[in-house]
């Protein structure tokens, strides 16, 4: 292939033509996009609150924390899948995050929701499912309300603190729940040959879902610590910055 793509940097940072028209340094979301994002984040906050309430009610009704998945199955699927929109938000530039990073995070959640928990019915009764659902629920309620308040320029310190602190417990909790669930699904995938195709076939392709799940589990080893320490680093930056602001007032 010809001599292109040597990791090129863009000298005009992608905003070239607009620099001449507007003296602003950064193109943020317009008023319409902001309104849409506020609605989106409010709806998502509400959705995960519904899941939280659903879990509590089911727990109180059943008297035990086993098999609570079934009471929140539909809203969980709906709102977690809805997060796919966030990839489009980045792609259209109304949210300043990286498309690749966001896609990766959302897809991993959607994968666990549909390709593991939904597809392998036998794991739906596992307690590990509750572990990650609770972690996700608390995390998402805080995250979406954080975005809502940020967009409205009225971010209570409590929400900011919660977002950058609770992850310390919630993140390992969620990861544990996810790994245990995938692990529990393995024997059933092996037995049923779920999502697997073997040779010979006219597509000359083979795929072993069992091996794939094991590789997914292994991939947590390099990925999780990096994300975790990144969040810790962000925490130090964000929370100490606010402290300085408070001191100077």
């Amino acid at each position, binding site marked *: 292939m*010809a*001599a292109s793509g*040597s*990791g090129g940097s863009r*000298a005009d940072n992608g905003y070239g033509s607009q620099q001449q028209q507007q003296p602003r340094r950064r193109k943020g979301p317009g008023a319409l996009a902001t309104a849409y994002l506020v609605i989106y984040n409010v709806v998502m906050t509400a959705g995960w609150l519904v899941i939280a309430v659903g879990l509590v009610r089911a727990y109180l009704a059943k008297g035990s924390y086993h098999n609570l998945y079934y009471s929140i199955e539909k809203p969980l699927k709906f709102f977690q899948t809805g997060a796919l929109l966030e990839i489009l938000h980045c792609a259209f530039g109304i949210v300043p995050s990286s498309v690749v990073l966001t896609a990766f995070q959302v897809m991993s959640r959607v994968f666990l929701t549909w390709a593991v928990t939904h597809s392998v019915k036998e794991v739906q009764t596992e307690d590990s499912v509750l572990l990650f659902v609770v972690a996700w629920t608390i995390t998402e309620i805080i995250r979406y309300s954080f975005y809502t308040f940020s967009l409205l320029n009225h971010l209570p310190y409590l929400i900011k603190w919660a977002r950058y602190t609770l992850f310390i417990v919630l993140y390992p909790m969620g990861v544990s729940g996810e790994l245990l669930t995938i692990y529990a699904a393995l024997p059933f995938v092996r037995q049923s040959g779920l999502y697997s195709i073997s*040779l010979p076939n*006219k597509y*000359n*392709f083979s795929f072993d879902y069992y091996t794939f799940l094991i590789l997914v589990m292994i991939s947590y080893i390099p990925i999780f610590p990096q994300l975790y320490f990144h969040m810790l680093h962000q925490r130090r930056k964000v929370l100490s910055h606010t402290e300085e602001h408070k001191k100077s007032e």
Partner: protein
Amino acid sequence: FVSYQVEILDWKTKKQLCFLDKVEANATIREIRLMFHKLYPRWYPARQSIKLDPKGKSLRDEEILQHLPVGTTATLYFKDLGPQIGWTTVFLIEYTGPLFIYFLFYFRMPFVYGLDERFTSSPHPVVNLACICHSFHYIKRLIETLFVHRFSHGTMPLRNIVKNCLYYWGFAAWLAYYINHPLYTPPSYGKKQINFAVIMFLLCEAGNFSIHVALSDLRRNGSKTRKIPYPTKNPFTWLFFFVSCPNYTYEVGTWISFTIMTQCVPVGLFTLLCFIQMTIWAKDKHCTYLREFKDYPSLRMPIIPFLL
């Protein structure tokens, strides 16, 4: 006759790394790089990024000191680009890998399909044909790297070679595994499908080669400046009427034909990834052409005529 003084600062720390006295006004950046290299032997010229502004673009070797917006005491900034490797070296390593890796599978080395199948051969003629085509493709690429391509950049960062090799070698192994597998299934439409694919393959390879030669001829006198490529007498180059990067168009065509020939999903996936990557490169190139040349032909699209 004025002589300049040049101080070179580290782009991040702004620490003075060197001070060059009595530099000629018509000295080129290449000469300044050589002087800097003498003082810092481990920073050979290819890994020096010399710029006017700490966050700016690297100055080209051909730039002349007195033509730069600097006073008689010029301040330049240095950034270490890390270990570099020549483009030719990179391509040779990237392309030799798939060539030999495919053979490991074609000849069914014992560790590939198990001891029972070792050194056996496939009953399907298309498997032999696929090996010939795949090998032909990479041998052609090696020949082009050695004799045809003229690279505008001399080097790329060393870490790129690990990433690139993993990609090329990995995919070569993955698709070779299925094509040469004892349980391989030949194409559904038999000889018709295979013959069509072979013809398409040969046409695209010829086309790709023609474009590479045409592009190389633009730089025949060793110049590094960009020129607009135009169609020549060779009919394969007439694609230049419609696209900026017909070499990529033909390349995608080659891989599509290989997919049809082998009817193998991994080959199809590789083709898709190639298409995506080359579309990105083509769009970049196309934008560069549009920016540099006011009279750039308006009919041309980056990679697919009229569409993309």
